[in-house]
């Protein structure tokens, strides 16, 4: 029995690999899933629990804790935050190294969006810029424009990445689990710390592979900063992206197809069209269009556009389009905004599933399938639901709109939908879109062929009837059979560089991660010194109040008492001596008188 360790950012990634995990477990592999962060926004933790109970060969557990996670890093660099007591916690070296690692990786991600292919992707660049402490974009904003400068900076960053040590906790974790293969996804999150797992695996001789989870992963997020031994991608387009944009040698890439969509080929509608329409609140006698919502990055404010879209349909003056029903399917992670949508204002329009529906609830996937299956066509801004619609052979439409330019032209993966060989018909205005709907909803052999071609190329590159899940499982098995790699411990220069310059860099990165102006760092030490001096004064004062003054008081009291006692004693003695003297003198006087009388 072999051991496969599958590291995921959070349990939400299970949905991309659920079938493959089951298949690997069923064929006798022990699949251990580790999650860097838990997440229950969309009930992902429930999915993990369900998966863990489905097979004795599947285990889910959290990955080792990080002392300075990317989240901590971002929270610390929040420019408006006012946190008290930062001085209280002594920051160990590990924090500094992790800060340096996150900084270096974020800068690399930032630099990639200066490349010519991302010239329209200013929003993607801004997204990274917001995460970086402000000093870096200020320095790099102009410096990184020439390609030569970018190459030099990137080489320097790679050098810094090399001297960042592996995390002891991760080394121990990997040693304990001792996997035959380490699978990592998504690895390309901005500033991702999953890189440390790849580094640890290299050091310990564990074979590693990156599993590219989704179609936009290699173009709209960060870089693969440290190359794993293998990269598993969906299709040739992603293989080219991996090579051209991430520098992955072609011999490390395996194309498996998209296992995520396999169920779409196997599923059948769970109910008739009439039943479905009645359930969702649409007129069953009329065809309907499915509007598929996009993610928050692509379409943060989608409701006004949808209202315009619906009005354009209703007032198109083309009976076939006017009478179309409209079913709106909010993106599960961007659904809240639809609370503001007034579906009552648009006859024969409905939102389904209702906003806030748990994506893990029974029937959620079936509902989605039915929504696409029974629709006459699918409309969306830029979403993977358009790929799903292509699998079911539905006509797919989009409208270019200025408010979504960053999510359409501003992303490279949009071109797969609308470029050569794409399946989505693009309109530049709602009027053109309405005309496209009028002509495009009819059955069309050319469109069917285009859809099939796209699916064959993009989803199932090994053949439209070849499910991707077994191919993915075979690819993992093949990687496992290659056996462990030779451990690659750090070279002497890396260890040497780590000692002095590395530590200094790490300390600087930790300090700069706060994103404060330069003068703050200059005054910080003198200010701390002044405050510590003042604290010493206060402590001395306290000591004085607590011990010094009472001691003096006691001493004064003792002195007074001594003086008092002694003076009393002296007085007493004097009094007694005086009495004695008086008595002596009286006796002497009496004696003298007697003597006189005797004479």
């Amino acid at each position, binding site marked *: 029995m072999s051991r496969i360790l599958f590291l995921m950012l959070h349990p939400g990634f299970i949905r991309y690999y659920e079938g493959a995990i089951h298949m690997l477990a069923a064929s006798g592999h022990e699949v251990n899933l580790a999650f860097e962060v838990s997440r229950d926004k969309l009930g992902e933790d429930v999915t993990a629990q369900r998966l863990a109970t489905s097979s004795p060969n599947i285990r889910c557990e959290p990955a080792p804790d990080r002392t300075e996670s990317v989240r901590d890093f971002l929270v610390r660099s929040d420019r408006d935050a006012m946190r008290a*007591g930062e001085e209280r916690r002594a920051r160990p070296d590990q924090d500094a190294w992790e800060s340096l690692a996150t900084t270096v990786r974020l800068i690399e991600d930032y630099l990639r969006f200066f490349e010519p292919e991302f010239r329209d992707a200013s929003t993607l660049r801004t997204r990274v810029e917001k995460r970086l402490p402000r000093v870096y974009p200020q320095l790099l904003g102009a410096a990184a424009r020439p390609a030569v400068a970018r190459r030099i900076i990137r080489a320097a960053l790679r050098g810094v990445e090399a001297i960042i040590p592996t995390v002891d906790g991760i080394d121990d974790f990997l040693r304990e689990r001792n996997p035959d293969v380490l699978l990592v996804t998504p690895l390309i999150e901005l500033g991702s710390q999953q890189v440390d797992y790849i580094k640890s695996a290299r050091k310990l001789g564990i074979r590693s592979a990156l599993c590219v989870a989704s179609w936009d992963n290699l173009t709209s997020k960060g870089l693969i900063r440290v190359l794993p031994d293998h990269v598993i991608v969906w299709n040739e387009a992603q293989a080219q992206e991996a090579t051209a944009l991430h520098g992955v040698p072609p011999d490390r890439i395996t194309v498996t197809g998209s296992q995520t969509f396999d169920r779409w080929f196997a599923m059948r509608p769970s109910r008739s069209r009439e039943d479905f329409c009645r359930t969702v609140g649409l007129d069953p006698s009329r065809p309907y269009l499915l509007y598929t919502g996009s993610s928050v990055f692509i379409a943060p404010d989608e409701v006004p556009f949808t209202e*315009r879209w619906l009005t354009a349909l209703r007032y198109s003056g083309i009976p076939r389009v006017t009478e179309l029903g409209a079913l709106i399917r909010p993106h599960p992670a961007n659904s809240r905004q639809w609370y*503001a949508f007034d579906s009552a204002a648009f006859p024969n329009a409905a939102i389904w599933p209702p906003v*806030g529906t748990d994506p893990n609830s029974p029937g959620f996937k079936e509902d989605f399938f039915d929504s696409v299956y029974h629709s006459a066509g699918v409309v969306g801004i830029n979403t993977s639901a358009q790929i799903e619609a292509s699998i079911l052979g539905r006509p797919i439409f989009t409208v270019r709109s200025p408010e979504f330019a960053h999510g359409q032209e501003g992303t490279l993966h949009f071109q797969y939908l609308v470029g050569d060989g794409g399946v989505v018909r693009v309109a530049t205005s709602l009027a053109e879109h309405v005309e496209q709907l009028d002509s495009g909803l009819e059955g069309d052999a050319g469109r069917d062929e285009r859809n099939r071609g796209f699916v064959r190329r993009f989803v199932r590159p090994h053949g439209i009837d070849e499910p991707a899940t077994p191919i993915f499982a075979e690819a993992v098995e093949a990687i496992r059979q290659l056996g462990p790699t030779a451990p690659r411990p750090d070279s002497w220069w890396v260890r040497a560089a780590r000692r002095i310059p590395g530590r200094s860099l790490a300390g600087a990165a930790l300090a700069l991660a706060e994103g404060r102006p330069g003068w703050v760092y200059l005054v910080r030490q003198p200010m701390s010194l002044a405050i510590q001096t003042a604290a010493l004064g206060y402590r001395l004062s306290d000591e004085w109040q607590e011990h010094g003054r009472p001691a003096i008081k006691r001493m004064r009291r003792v002195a007074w008492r001594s003086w008092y006692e002694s003076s009393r004693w002296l007085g007493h003695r004097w009094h007694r001596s005086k009495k004695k003297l008086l008595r002596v003198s009286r006796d002497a006087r009496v004696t003298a008188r007697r003597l006189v009388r005797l004479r």
Partner: protein
Amino acid sequence: MTITAVETTAGGRPLLLLRPDVSHPARCGIDLVAAATHARETGGTICLLLHGEPMPVSVDGVPVITPHGMQRIWLSAVWRTASAARDVRAWWRHVEASVAHEWRRELRRHIGDERLPFELRQRLRRMAEARTRRVQTETNAFPRRMLRASSAVSLLPDFVEEARRQLTALGITDGRPLVTFESRTRPDIAAAVMKFLVSEGYAVARIGDPADGVRSCDGVVDLTTCRPRPLSLEMFLVSASAFIMCESNDLQQLAYLTNTPSLMINARDPFVAYPVRANGLFALSAAIDLESAQPITIGAMLTQPYFRDLHKQQVRGRRRGSHGYRDNTVEELTHAINEIRAGIAEGWTSESESQSTFRQRVLEAGAALAPISAHVAEWGPDDGFIGDGRLVRFQADRVS
């Protein structure tokens, strides 16, 4: 949003140097009206330093001059110097505020350190608070008081003729009263409202975004594609309108220049939208709390959490806020249109008690929020004055 005028003297008389941004009609309007008020108070003259496009206005009761030759060069130099000094002052204030903010953050690092003596931490806390109090960032407060009195600003006759000719060419004739309608609202609502206006005998000039999906009907002249419109045309359009319906502040502010009654719809911010003049009305959008999916009351739109969320969305560029908005419905807008028509007919005398109560509430909320919200300090009450305009009656009644 303060006036960019510079005060100087010429021959012992106050002279107000003004360089209005002709490319931005609203800002230009605010500058002119505020400068006119100031010039009237001081008995001064407005001196326009224009760049290219001539300023097509005259202000009643205030001499307006346009210098030429050496005089212009000299006055431009004066204006530039004063503007530069003002910019430096503003920069310095910003630096000061930034330093105070960072200083406070540094102190807070130690204030929370429990190893330090309690008295010292208390003292540091007092220092941090005192530092923040001392440096209050000066906001460019919207000069509500200066805009209160209607300045009789009118277009110069030559420009009137030219603008009238242009509008006639675009299809707007003098036959029917005109309503300028700026639509960003839901297209179906905009279409229904324009239809209602036409049925009430108005001609409608639609401006705004050409891609808003609104379909025009008879009686509606679509000016959305006629852009950029020269200032004279924009001003004439607004001044020739019986009233304007708008969603943007820019148009509402331009209406102050021409003293045109305005109805602002789908407002999200009661302070920004509150009309300065008595002939202004506004209607608030229905805000929905996206956590609970429940509508929030208009009263809740005057609270700090609401403004914090709005600020995060608008200023800090957060992609999602905690609130969603539903546009005013056709029925609501019909009510509002009837109210503005009644106001125009009756001379804006019939303010309901609920409307004046709401104004009071806005004033109170403004006073409470201004010290803690720069946004409210900028757009809120100006020395205890929020505006003579009002919230539409059906909403004000709902609040009370």
